[in-house]
């Protein structure tokens, strides 16, 4: 084998490595753009205007979710749920999905207790932010980070 053919083979190997790297970069950039915490905040501002306070809202979700396709999330708000003092609305956003919105709920005193459980898709590790709007107009907020092993938005 001549030294020239060895050189050629090397060049081929280097070339192939370069292609793989380029392909890998391509897949990174081809991923759908994800929402940012700022986008999530902005959305919450349009849903419920004002500065939310801490407290009264509890967000329960697993610390680590293996499957991002269905992450159980429980939201409860401490409120007597009477005609005078109840939770009017609950807004849920997730700041790492392609779109930050998840769901909004309107409650009435007929609920008796402000607690809901639902299952959410999560594309990656991210924060679930919940804002609750009380009948007197005050806002309360809470957030919970969920680590996602396998994202649930691609395919």
């Amino acid at each position, binding site marked *: 084998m001549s030294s020239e053919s060895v050189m050629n083979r090397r060049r081929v190997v280097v070339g192939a490595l370069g292609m793989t790297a380029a392909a890998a970069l391509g897949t990174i950039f081809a991923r*759908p753009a994800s929402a940012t915490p700022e986008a999530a905040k902005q959305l919450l501002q349009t849903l419920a205007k004002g500065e939310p306070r801490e407290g009264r809202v509890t967000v329960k979700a697993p610390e680590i979710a293996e499957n991002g*396709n*269905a*992450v159980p999330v429980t939201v409860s708000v401490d409120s007597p*749920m009477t005609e005078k003092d109840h939770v009017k609305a609950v807004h849920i956003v*997730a700041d790492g*999905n*392609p*779109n930050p*919105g*998840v*769901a*909004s*709920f*309107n*409650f*009435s*005193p*007929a*609920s*008796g*207790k*402000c*607690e*809901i*459980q*639902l*299952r*959410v*898709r*999560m594309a990656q590790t991210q924060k679930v932010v919940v804002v609750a709007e009380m009948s007197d107009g005050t806002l309360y907020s809470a957030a919970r980070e969920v680590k996602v092993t396998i994202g*649930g*938005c*691609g*395919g």
Partner: protein
Amino acid sequence: MADDIKPRIRIPQNPKKGDVLEIKTLITHPMESGQRKDAEGKTIPRRIVNAVSVTYNGKPVLSGKYEPAISANPYLAFFVKVEESGTLAFEWKDDDGTVYKAEEKITLAG
């Protein structure tokens, strides 16, 4: 496809007046997010259940708006306070305009 969409509702047994009941609901639905692509690289159009509402004897209990971030076969558990026997009515709205309805009778003991 639309034929597979079926609501399932679970209510507690033997409710009493003044009880706060936990209602569990699930509707079988693909909740196509509009983000996925098929084998040819074309985007699969979005088709989700975008709204849900619950009334008890005609009075609103809970209503919600869903985004594509809700999992397939959307599950929802919530509470309702019952002071009288009656009918719990559910409605889910599909992106394609279909409305899926379901009803559950609640009869209070004593």
